[in-house]
């Protein structure tokens, strides 16, 4: 069917498609924004983001403050001792779970976005160079990529963070460094495909240098679509951040993160199940919202790249 459709749509005087004249980024955005999944994800994410941005300060509750009298309060409507003051209950030393989760969300999101930025930077740079120049450069970069892909990133991360002291920049760096091969591969293949196209050849014949072609023609064209895919990786990085926290290799207590709250709560699983599960629900909601947005982007990107 695909072939027929293109002949039908391309062959006779093609109606000037207003949508097609906008940049690919905008088209992906508007295409994605039409899907229900995107809207749900976006609404959820906005609520969570607003809550994380304002609730801890507005409520005036200190996430680190102990309150022995209000310890182990269950969340709303559970048991008999729940209270409106602590919608998600309190932990073993009476700290408010909602505020702790929201503060954890801040760190988690910050680390997620920052490490994806590191990943993108390294991955795109290496991938572009590898795909554009090919030959021996390509072989070397791809071999390093293979080597990196062959050790689970978690082994690398825990090896480094476990042996040294985990600080936030170290965590960002380790997470960022562990995921770049995926981007390097994707970027390499699109750059290779694009490099063979005639307009690149035309630029070359007009005398443009390789850096000029890469920076003015290829990067502005190829990187933005990749940014949409990277939304999914923000969620992945947040999971890894919380995993590290869970193993005690993330941001160190007393700063609350999803990982260390859940690791703490695991000890009280049988008498206060909410300490371990509630932050998890929170984390899942955040990740689901990001993943819905990311997946909608990815679909939109595929639809637009398939059709144009």
């Amino acid at each position: 069917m695909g072939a027929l459709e293109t002949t039908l749509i391309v062959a006779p005087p093609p109606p000037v498609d207003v949508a097609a004249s906008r940049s690919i980024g905008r088209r992906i955005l508007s295409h994605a924004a039409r899907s229900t999944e995107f809207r749900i994800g976006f609404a959820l994410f906005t609520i969570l983001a607003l809550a994380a941005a304002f609730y801890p300060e507005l409520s005036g509750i200190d996430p680190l403050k102990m309150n022995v009298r209000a310890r182990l309060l269950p969340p709303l409507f559970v048991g008999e001792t729940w209270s409106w003051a602590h919608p998600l209950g309190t932990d073993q030393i009476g700290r408010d779970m909602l505020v702790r989760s929201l503060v954890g969300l801040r760190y988690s999101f910050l680390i997620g976005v920052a490490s994806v930025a590191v990943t993108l930077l390294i991955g795109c740079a290496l991938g572009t160079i590898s795909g554009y120049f090919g030959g021996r450069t390509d072989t070397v970069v791809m071999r390093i990529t293979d080597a990196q892909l062959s050790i689970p990133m978690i082994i690398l991360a825990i090896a480094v963070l476990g042996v040294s002291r985990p600080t936030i920049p170290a965590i960002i760096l380790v997470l960022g460094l562990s995921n770049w091969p995926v981007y390097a591969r994707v970027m390499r293949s699109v750059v290779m495909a694009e490099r063979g196209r005639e307009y690149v050849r035309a630029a070359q014949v007009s005398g443009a240098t390789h850096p000029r072609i890469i920076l003015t023609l290829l990067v502005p064209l190829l990187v933005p679509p990749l940014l949409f895919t990277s939304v999914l990786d923000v969620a992945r990085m947040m999971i890894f951040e919380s995993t590290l926290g869970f193993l005690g290799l993330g941001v160190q207590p007393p700063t609350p993160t999803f990982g260390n709250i859940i690791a703490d709560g695991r000890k009280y699983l049988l008498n206060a199940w909410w300490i371990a599960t509630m932050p998890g629900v929170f984390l899942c909601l955040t990740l689901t919202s990001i993943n819905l947005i990311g997946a909608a982007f990815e679909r939109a990107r595929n639809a637009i790249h398939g059709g144009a």
Partner: protein
Amino acid sequence: MFVLSFLARRLAQGAVIIFLVSLLIFTLLRVVPGDPVRLMAGGMAPEALIEQIATQMGLRDPIPVQFGRYMARVVQGDLGQSFVRPANGAATGGANFNDTTRGERAKVMDLILDALPMTLQLAALALVFALVFSSLLGIAAGLRPGGIADKLAFTVSSVFVSLPNFWLGIVLALLLSVKLGWLPAIGYGGFSYTVLPALVLAVELSPVLIRTLSGAVAAQMGESYVTVGQVRGLSPTRIVAAHALRNASVPLLNLLGVQFSSLLGGVIIVEYIFDYPGLGLLTINAVLQRDFPLIQGIAIVTSAIFVLINILVDLAATSIDPRLEY
């Protein structure tokens, strides 16, 4: 003949990869702060003694020298001895600094070989769960893009990919094991102990499988041989079963090769949560105890497995699609 030369080339490439991995992990462990001797000897040990032990073990030599010495043993199949684990099994913290009789330390190779079968069992079961579930949903979704199965696949994979495995492990253990008592959870005492960790891993694996499969099937259904096939007189069932799925399995196979390391990453966490005595638990303990030889050994073995699996995957993919080059 083709297969042999392919194997030779890929094994040579694999050796390069394993070498790079060893170099990377070896250097990383030595440049980041944290002294294993301090941990081995215990906090109370005097500085001079620590220096003495470290020098004895060659830990104060330049890194290239240490690495050369290490690799010379590795190529003979000797991954060295654990810093902290005694040969009789139980892990010790090494509190007593006088007790450094090297002969009693466990061989890294033995430790890994003990743990590996357990992990393979877990990984295989998880893969079976994930493949069965993802195939059903992914193929149905790919055959009818935009249909109910497609929407379901989208939602399921978005939710599954958002479940952190350690949290899911805790929740499932709480529900299925503590509350309902259906499955055992902690430790290992028979095959049934594998089921719950495998389920958690399968949930982690399936989103990417579902997406790849539904995408690949949908792409194949748009290929012209599918539509032309009907005009040639083939029945739709036959086109899907004998041709589209066959072609769509190639990206899936490639994915499995690449996903191996994330599967192993998941295994580490899941084993830690369920206290499952496999390679993952071994890794975490090795890291927490700064057991350098063990960490290095595990990295080398996993990357070797990765290389082998990818060779197998490529062989399988090439036997399906002869256009892929040997």
